[in-house]
């Protein structure tokens, strides 16, 4: 074989790790849309809003991993979104509460809500948030640890399905009560507000908003790539296998609990990163994102996009929020009903979400395109022979899609 061919082969192998060329092109399209088209079309006000919607895409992508592939429906993703967001907010709040800024308080140098609640010194768990590096670590580590603990306790005891959903929902509800009840430490129902600078850099200027938006886009794309890597690895196949025949996986020598814990932790970490970007772009964090209502709304973002498509979930989160925002401007009463109807419709009429619809309609179109504009393309055929059954070489490969009926 001559050299270009081996190179092409290596490249295609490399791409297969992320779901093949088709998926990578789809991610590039998203990148183009959010990083070129949107900034060109929208003013900074809209763009900032879009950035907020994109932070929900993180959660939706996480849910695709753990619900769509792992079959684990978590109704508590808001917890992790909130943990990430709160970690970031705590750092920003400490920065905003320098002794000079808070000279008017009875104890200067602590966040204003602590002062109102008669706290006279910073609680221990706030201390690490003086350091930006530590904050960045904690944004990932705290939700990961929490998800690990929940996952460990539940999956090792084989709690799954409906029970897991109900218990995570209960935990989300407990978290909300706790945050609201302990307002001296958490800011209570107001949340942590009035966040203005990041290491001395004013995050409210238009320029800062642009920078944060692009950073958010970048992080989202990385998370999507990471997600693609996960579902196209042997581990991704295991997730599908586990959903089909959990016992078979277990009796093939796998520790099923560990597989589940990992996917749950991964989903949580991705959500938490979204939460951190939310705080940065919106300028505050409040318990309303932790609660049961927010958490279940996040599930619908994922379901609308397609619970088996990471890319679809990103679109889903964006579009649902866009619709919510524009509908609520014109018909505030109608929005709630529309949201309710969306829940029902996505379950009854198109359980595979937008991604499913696109596959149903794009498949024939693509075939038609291929036949009409047929070009001599010998290379892929060879490729397929030499590199057998990559998990998912073509975007509309049957196994993944037929997996959708089982839930």
């Amino acid at each position, binding site marked *: 074989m001559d050299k270009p061919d081996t190179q092409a082969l290596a490249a295609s192998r490399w791409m297969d790790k992320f779901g093949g060329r088709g998926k990578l092109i789809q991610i590039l399209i998203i990148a183009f849309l959010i990083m070129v088209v949107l900034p060109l079309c929208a003013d900074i006000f809209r763009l900032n809003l879009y950035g907020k919607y994109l932070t929900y895409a993180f959660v939706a992508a996480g849910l695709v991993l753990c619900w769509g592939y792992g079959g684990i429906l978590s109704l508590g993703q808001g917890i992790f979104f909130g943990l990430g967001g709160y970690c970031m907010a705590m750092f920003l709040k400490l920065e905003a509460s320098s002794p000079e800024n808070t000279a008017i308080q009875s104890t200067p140098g602590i966040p204003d809500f602590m002062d109102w609640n008669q706290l006279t010194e910073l609680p221990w768990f706030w201390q690490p948030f003086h350091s930006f590096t530590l904050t960045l670590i904690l944004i990932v580590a705290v939700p990961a640890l929490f998800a690990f603990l929940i996952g460990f306790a539940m999956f090792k005891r084989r709690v799954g399905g409906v029970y897991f959903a109900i218990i995570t929902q209960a935990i989300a509800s407990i978290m909300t009560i706790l945050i609201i009840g302990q307002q001296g430490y958490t800011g209570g129902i107001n949340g942590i507000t009035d966040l203005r600078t990041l290491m001395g850099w004013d995050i409210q200027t238009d320029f800062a908003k642009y920078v944060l938006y692009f950073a958010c886009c970048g992080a989202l794309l990385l998370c999507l790539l990471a997600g693609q890597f996960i579902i196209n*690895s*042997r581990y991704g196949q295991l997730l599908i296998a586990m959903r089909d025949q959990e016992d078979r996986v277990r*009796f*093939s020598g796998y520790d099923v609990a560990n597989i589940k814990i990992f996917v749950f932790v991964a989903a949580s970490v991705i959500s938490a990163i979204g939460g951190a970007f939310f705080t940065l772009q919106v300028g505050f964090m409040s318990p309303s994102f932790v609660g049961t209502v927010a958490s279940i709304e996040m599930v619908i973002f994922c379901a609308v996009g397609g619970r088996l498509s990471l890319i679809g979930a990103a679109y889903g989160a964006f579009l649902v929020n866009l619709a919510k925002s524009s509908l609520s401007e014109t018909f505030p009463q109608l929005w709630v009903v529309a949201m309710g109807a969306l829940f029902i419709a996505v379950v009854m009429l198109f359980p595979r979400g937008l991604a499913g619809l696109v596959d149903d309609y794009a498949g024939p179109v693509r075939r038609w395109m291929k036949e009409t504009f047929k070009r001599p393309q010998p290379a892929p055929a060879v490729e397929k022979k030499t590199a057998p059954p990559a998990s998912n070489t073509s975007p509309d490969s049957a196994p993944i899609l037929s997996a959708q009926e089982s839930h």
Partner: protein
Amino acid sequence: MTSPILLAVEGLTVSFDGFKAVDDLSLYVERNEVRVVIGPNGAGKTTLLDLICGKTRATDGSIKFKDTELTRLAEDKIVHEGVGRKFQTPSIYENLTVFQNLELSYPKGRTVFGSLFFRRTPAITARVKEIAEMIYLDDDLEKSAGLLSHGQKQWLEIGMLLIQDPELLMLDEPVAGMSVVERERTAELLNRISTNRSVLVIEHDMDFVKDIAHKVTVLHQGKVLAEGKMDDIQKNERVIEVYLGH
């Protein structure tokens, strides 16, 4: 010298809310032996396999595999010890291809991170093909497993166990629902694969049992009723009474 006994079940008991599905049962399987367990419905056959592979936990008694006590071991650890188990209804991953089914069962990359960074080597591909040939599925590697016939699914599941090269293979009614031809091929398959491992089979089909069994154990109400060569068993009056009689 290793002992000729591969699996030693002693005094095994399990009760569900007072009902003893397996009651003080003892059983020894030798290396390279094909042992068939028969018995009427509810005799505790499937429960016995569940106990050995860890799906159900014993109330009392011991299961020794080689020198390892299995009763307290986690399921995946029991598999790592070298015990493979096929379920009564074919349990395969219908949404994956035959190739993927077999590859996923290949005993490598079994940890989370191992599976994330798993790389397919030519050796693995070769091994998958070898097994596929053995289970008569070498032409269907790319087929989605859900599209296979019932008999082929049974073979695939056996193949998924074979690729792990277990020392003890436990099969729960491997030929149930198979055509005559398929049944013959399955018998042939079992004879071929039992040359270097022990096989524990639950089966109802007496002709098939005759074809493969070295030794037969008859269970009744969670206890061993009789054990020995098939010919002897067929002559055993108690067995005839409870089982073959009707």
